[in-house]
């Protein structure tokens, strides 16, 4: 019996082997290439989630390329960076991402160059080439862009007897005070973790400061920046902002502006659909203006760009990724995205086509080429995280130590 068992087992094993060989042997020829796409969700709920947008593209793409399947996963905007980072830390690379792009992934050799995964890279908006580049090569493909601008509630301004939007910090202070007297929030200052780096930079720009100087050196704790935070503190201490700005996120502040609770904020085009959904303010109840500077309105603003990026993984999917990137960046999809979320296109041809569709956003698009951008240094990833976490604590008697800490992080490197 014992002896007899072995051949049976062997026969069984070889049969199983043959079977598995048969299965695995034919599999590669028939199986679809699967592309994992992880995208940030720009929507405010189930009805306008970006999952719908991407799934439509994925389905159309699959219909045109039956051998390639795109699996779409969208991640809440607040968690996107951490999600991608965790995937990278665990070596579970996505194939394509759309959202924030970090040059550290390019530095680590994880990304395809744009020229490897796109037929016509020259169609990408040139204003953001530098931001999406590392070491002279471009890795990030501008997908959607926006520029910041000042939004103000005309209704509240009229009630407070104010003629127009503030031009200088002093005017902003006075105006915010008058709106506060109406029982509303004068100025909405979102310094909470979600997007503090944007609000902070807009204020720094107003005083000729910034995160880096013209030659790319970190100047986070410069005297201008300290002075800027001192003014912001003055505004907060007077009670003209929402309480404790360091704990308030942009999404909540935009929502409150849309509800008519706030007089002035530094907003984005994406605020427009939020205002429309809220249904409290009519189109004539709000207006936009240039960002307020210390001595006058800024002739520039913060330009923000979200990128598509392609991870190399095992290197076998390059052709499929290229097909999908070309497909997804068609003008019609760029326009559809811009219309859905009131953002601006990331491709030159998309922008040209979109300005004919929606002239209301043309001035924002005109501002993009000269817009100030975030640093493209790989350490920016850490600097940004730290600004988001602690910049709110710089609102206080002495902002300098907080800025010193952030400056140290920038200089320490990754």
């Amino acid at each position, binding site marked *: 019996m014992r002896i007899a068992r072995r051949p049976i087992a062997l026969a069984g094993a070889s049969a199983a082997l043959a079977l598995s060989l048969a299965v695995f042997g034919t599999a590669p020829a028939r199986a679809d290439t699967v592309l994992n796409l992880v995208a940030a969700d720009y929507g405010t709920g189930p009805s306008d989630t970006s999952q719908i947008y991407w799934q439509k593209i994925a389905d159309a793409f699959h219909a045109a390329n039956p051998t390639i399947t795109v699996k779409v996963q969208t991640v809440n905007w607040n968690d996107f960076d*951490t999600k991608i*980072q965790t995937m*990278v*830390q*665990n*070596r579970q690379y996505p194939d394509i991402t759309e959202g924030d792009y970090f040059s*550290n*992934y390019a530095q*680590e050799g*994880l990304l395809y160059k744009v020229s490897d995964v796109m037929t016509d890279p020259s169609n990408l908006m040139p204003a953001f080439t530098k931001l999406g580049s590392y070491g002279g090569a471009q890795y990030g493909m501008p997908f959607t862009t926006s520029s910041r601008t000042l939004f103000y509630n005309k209704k509240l301004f009229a009630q407070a007897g104010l003629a127009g939007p503030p031009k200088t910090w002093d005017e902003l202070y006075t105006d915010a005070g008058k709106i506060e007297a109406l*029982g509303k*929030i004068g100025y909405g200052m979102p310094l*909470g*973790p979600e997007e503090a780096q944007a609000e902070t930079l807009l204020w720094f720009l107003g005083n000729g400061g910034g995160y880096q100087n013209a030659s790319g050196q970190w100047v986070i704790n410069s005297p201008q920046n300290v002075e800027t935070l001192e003014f912001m503190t003055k505004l907060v201490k007077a*009670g003209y902002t*929402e*309480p*404790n700005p*360091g*704990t*308030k996120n942009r999404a*909540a502040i935009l929502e*409150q502006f849309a509800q008519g*609770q706030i007089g002035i904020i530094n907003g984005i085009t994406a605020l427009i659909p939020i205002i429309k959904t809220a249904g409290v303010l009519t189109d004539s109840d709000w207006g936009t203006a240039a960002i307020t500077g210390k001595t006058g309105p800024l002739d520039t603003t913060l330009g923000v760009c979200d990128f598509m990026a392609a991870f190399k993984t095992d290197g076998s999917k390059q052709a499929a990724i290229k097909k999908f990137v070309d497909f997804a960046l068609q003008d019609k999809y760029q326009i559809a995205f811009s219309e859905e979320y009131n953002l601006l296109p990331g491709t030159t041809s998309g922008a040209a086509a979109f300005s004919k569709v929606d002239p209301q956003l043309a001035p924002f698009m005109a501002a993009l080429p000269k817009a100030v951008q975030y640093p493209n240094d790989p350490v920016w*990833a*850490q600097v940004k*995280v*730290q600004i988001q*976490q*602690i910049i*709110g*604590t710089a609102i206080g008697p002495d902002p300098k130590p907080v800025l010193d*800490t952030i400056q140290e*992080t920038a200089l320490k490197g*990754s």
Partner: protein
Amino acid sequence: MSISAARDEPVVARTRRPPLKLAARLAPLVWVGPAMALIVVVVLWPVVIMIETAFQHISPDGFILGWAGWRNFVYLWEEPDLPGILIRTGIWVGTVVVGTMLISLALAQLFNQKFPGRRFARWALIAPWAASVVMTAIVFRWALDANNGIINVVLYDLGLLHRFNTDAADWLGTPGSAFAWMIVVAIYVSVPFSTYALLAGLQGIPSDVYEAARVDGAGAWRTYFKITLPLLRPAFIVALLINVMNVFNSFPIIWEMTRGGPGHQTSTTTTFMYQLKESYIGESAAMSVVNFGLVVVIVAIYLRATVWNREPV
């Protein structure tokens, strides 16, 4: 013959029996083995990896760049927020556990009495335990919202709050009040378990002990302190230890309500460790090692305390 047989026997025994003995000795391993393997893979191995990581220089994206020596610990020690975080962790564990145990003692006593609707009340107590802690924390975060949180609306209607969107309404905006609220929520979610553990202990106390006490003329307080509490000690110590561990490692309440903010002013070592992970994996692992050390110390103290306590009983 007999001599040679006697001589031969040990030789045979030596060659044959030891394997049998060994097999017999190893037999329990078949039963214990899987559990031991599980402990090694799920508990010990991660500890080894954690300690190894604490001494490595790792890029934010998980690439090992070499050994760091004690540098991660030095960076951790130089974090300006660390002393505050350590003190806060102590306060957090202390107040939440003490608060939980005191309330649970009272509640367990109440639920041990017969009263109409007791069954319903006991079921109701399970709710905060059964609900996801993340969910509970989010509910409280919105209830405390400075603009329109339900708690603020109630306070406003009662005339206790004069205006929304002020410091007074912004419970989670300032470290002090935010931390106090988080302690309340932590107690709220810890009470059900402790109450049930103590209730089980109370039900295990034989009624003849109480009868004897009554015959001897002991009053209610005296009975409680001299009979109930000492006999409740095993259940109490188990509940206490589990609570200390749970509260020390508590992440979702703090994360959902304040994310440790503003700055790190409502962080404990557990949430701080998570935040470090985003930028400095090695330093985060160093924080984990410190946390692990603290837990080991707490467990050691309690194991000693339980032994010391049981001996006189």
